[in-house]
């Protein structure tokens, strides 16, 4: 809901979130260095930096990847979704420090370009166990760089939320590359069952959460309500919707959120114009539907953002018969005023 672009938009909540991220990163690094010095004092500074920032980036990536499904499965996790982009950029910076130090440490003393050396120092591309793991990390770093550099709202607006979100799903490819990078890297130097266990556990948790959330969403997408003679779709009993909240239904290929507020009902398209957040999972705040992802707001009776903002979503006509809500499946133009029905 920004009127213009700024390098980074910070508000009070984002500042708190960022402080927690920075503090968490520093605490982890200090703890890692202290434990390394206590248990492996012969480790040289370069190795310590490479391992500390590498493991930090992997842990942060795991946190980033569980936030999405956790928020879809339980709205209590929505606050940590709020500033996930800053967490992602911070994770990229940790991965970048790891990558740069690794390239300097392992590849700058030769007589070839260090980047070229990353791809050619181990040519065992035909082996699974001895595969050149640094190449996988390098490719993952390129993806993370692309994502961090296009994370700003400028790219979101100009690429469209759909294209932007689709491109940023490349994080799953980066995750697969990083998982293999860490597996191979750890094994080619020291075969550690502990490392395997942690990574396997992380993979099981992340993939299970994503799949459970995806199948839950599929159920909503598969909803096919019965139509009355006028072509209106029967959706639910009015008492199923809590006050100042919504219920989400699929109408054809689209999702619609029906909100109940101040004794009235209104229906709007469920997808936020900002990043495609699920408006129906938000609530009415100050008379406006508030997106749970980043707080974008829309008036429930016309789908328009309150002035001076200009975002608009489609609206839908509703009818109430004996406490049963019916919806006209043909959506109206974005921002069209629809008289709320009384309930």
């Amino acid at each position, binding site marked *: 809901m920004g009127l213009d672009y700024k390098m980074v938009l910070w508000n009070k909540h984002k500042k708190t979130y960022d402080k927690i991220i920075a503090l968490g990163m520093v605490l982890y690094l200090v703890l890692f260095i202290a434990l390394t010095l206590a248990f492996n004092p012969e480790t040289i500074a370069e190795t310590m930096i490479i391992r500390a920032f590498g493991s930090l980036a992997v842990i942060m990536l795991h946190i980033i990847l569980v936030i999405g499904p956790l928020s879809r499965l339980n709205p209590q996790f929505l606050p940590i979704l709020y500033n996930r982009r800053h967490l992602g950029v911070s994770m990229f910076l940790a991965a970048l420090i790891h990558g740069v130090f690794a390239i300097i440490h392992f590849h700058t003393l030769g007589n070839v370009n260090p980047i070229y050396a990353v791809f050619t120092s181990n040519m065992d591309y035909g082996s699974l166990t001895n595969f050149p793991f640094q190449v996988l990390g390098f490719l993952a770093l390129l993806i993370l760089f692309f994502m961090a550099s296009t994370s700003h709202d400028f790219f979101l607006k100009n690429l469209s939320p*759909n294209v932007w979100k689709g491109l940023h*799903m490349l994080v799953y490819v980066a995750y697969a590359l990083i*998982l*293999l990078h860490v597996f191979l890297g750890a094994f080619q130097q020291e075969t550690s069952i502990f490392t395997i266990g942690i990574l*396997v556990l992380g993979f099981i948790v992340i*993939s299970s959460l994503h*799949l459970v959330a*995806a199948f839950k969403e599929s159920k909503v997408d598969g909803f096919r309500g019965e139509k009355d003679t006028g072509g209106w779709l029967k959706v639910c009993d009015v008492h199923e919707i809590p006050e100042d909240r919504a219920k989400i239904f699929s109408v054809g*290929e689209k999702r619609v959120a029906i909100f109940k507020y101040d004794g009235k009902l209104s229906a709007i398209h469920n997808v936020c114009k900002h990043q*495609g957040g699920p408006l129906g999972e938000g609530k009415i705040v100050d008379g406006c539907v508030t997106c749970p992802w980043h707080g974008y707001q829309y008036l429930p009776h016309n789908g328009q953002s309150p002035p001076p903002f200009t975002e608009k979503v489609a609206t839908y006509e509703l009818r109430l018969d004996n406490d049963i809500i019916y919806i006209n499946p043909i959506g109206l133009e974005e921002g069209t005023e629809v008289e709320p029905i009384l309930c």
Partner: protein
Amino acid sequence: MDANLRKRHKYSWLLLAIILPILLILIIKDLDFNQPENVSYEPNGSSSNDMVAASLVKSKGTYILELNIKSPLRSASSVVYALNMKGEKGTKLGQINGAGSYTFPSEKEIQGIIIQDILKNQEILKLEF
């Protein structure tokens, strides 16, 4: 997200959930997790001074010289040689570039080491086990 993105998301994770475990199993199956337990290291002598600590261990029939260079040797090119049974300069084991830990394999048992600056042809230090 719209329905298409949700579908793409679901199929991405289904694909990852199938492919990654297969790859990880194929990687893991060639690894020998018992290796550290099976390897026994028999100490075969050690010696040290202010700058260098050297020890010789025997593992699976091979001798391994472990060298810990505590401070830089102030030499442009330091080469490590084994001391033979007569206490004289024998086989070349390898080169050292600065402070840090080094390991050099040796086919025969050695009696100590000599580190030489091969450019100046000077002996930097000699350690006998």
